[in-house]
């Protein structure tokens, strides 16, 4: 099924965990939740593919989990607070996962954070060019409904 379009789809590098992804990713997130128990972590580590059969996952979702493709998991309905439990099961810190998702080394990522983080400039919109003079780019007029809601 194709996703309905939303105003936030325009935000770059971001998979919003919305109701549709929540539906789609139920199996991913319940799998991750199961990793809160030590016995389950051991069973998963003993035979990952076999363990995943206990959950309602598509072939794509299982592959993303087995490959530890965190961005793909998010895209297919995983939520970061859940997928972080998989990272923890692998013994990774959260910052390790964050760096991984950004395609950076943990060291470089940590340095970026110390230097004030990733700038929002140039990172607001996939479609709009960054506007150097203006601090905020507001998606005005994208949809009639959307612009009305501003109070």
């Amino acid at each position: 099924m194709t996703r309905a379009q939303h105003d936030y789809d325009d935000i770059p590098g971001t998979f919003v965990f919305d109701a549709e992804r929540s539906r789609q990713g139920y199996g991913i997130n319940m799998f991750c939740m199961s990793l809160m128990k030590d016995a389950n972590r051991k069973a998963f580590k003993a035979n990952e593919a076999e363990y995943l059969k206990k959950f309602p996952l598509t072939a794509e979702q299982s592959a993303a989990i087995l490959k530890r493709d965190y961005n793909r998991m998010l895209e297919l309905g995983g939520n970061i607070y859940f997928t972080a439990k998989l990272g923890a099961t692998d013994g990774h810190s959260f910052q390790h996962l964050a760096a991984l998702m950004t395609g950076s080394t943990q060291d470089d990522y940590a340095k970026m954070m110390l230097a004030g983080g990733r700038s929002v400039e140039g990172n607001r919109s996939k479609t709009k060019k960054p506007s150097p003079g203006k601090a905020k780019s507001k998606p005005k007029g994208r949809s009639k409904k959307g612009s009305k809601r501003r109070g």
Partner: protein
Amino acid sequence: MPAIGAAIDNGKTEQPYWQRVFAGFEKSKAWMAKAKPDLVIGVYNDHASAFSVEFIPTFALGCAAEFPPADEGWGPRPVPVVKGHPEMASHIAQSVILDEFDLTIVNKMEVDHGLTVPMNLMFGSPKEWPCPVIPLAVNVVMYPPPTGHRCFMLGRAIRKAVESYPEDLRVVIMGTGGMSHQISGPRAGLINSKFDKAFLDNLTKNPKKLARMPHVEYMREAGAEGIEMVMWHVMRGALDDKVNEVYRFYTVPASNTAVGHIILENRRRAAGKGKSARKPARKASRRARR
């Protein structure tokens, strides 16, 4: 692992990196010690601890007598059990549901770092928490969370409930979550200090307008998880329109996020007219989560 909590639990608060963060809360702790609330209402979000995706309540009010710290995968945080205030909580539930806020009543719940870390920042690490706490868990994990305006109005309704409670209690309300943070996807690590500071300014001076900010703006400007800031509006709605900003603190980074914190107080205090529920409310903020 929620980095601030880990720093507290592992005794790292004196390290220079963390010292910068914790030093910002010294005044807050002093304020809290002086405020001596009879009750804290803690507006926070659960992080796949008490609630998975099996059920996702938008507003869940903790009405239990106690709330043990959750095991978030590393064993429960070494913090005291949070004692609730079932009498006030059930009174709030009764009042706000009739005011058309259909919240979920929770009589058994564990609380995670989303609540206990802000409590550490405001109370330190005592053997027992000095007062009861009513947790109000807000869904900000699955989009859409409640609108800022809905949160603000719920804050109003909670205040009305507190004021109609037979006993006159001194109540502090804490909003938590945010500020700038994106911890997921290729854009992780986003920080927008300008947005955060404007948010704090408007929270004090222009709260009603601020509460109308559309969700997409939080996510675009302050990161996908920056949307947690809607929870601050519950706190702000519970206060007077005009408040005094007592204290503010902002720093970047705490691990992957910005940390912001503000204390607001109602102006009319000890004016002796009627029984205004005294609410030095404040909010804490915080933080960071990972």
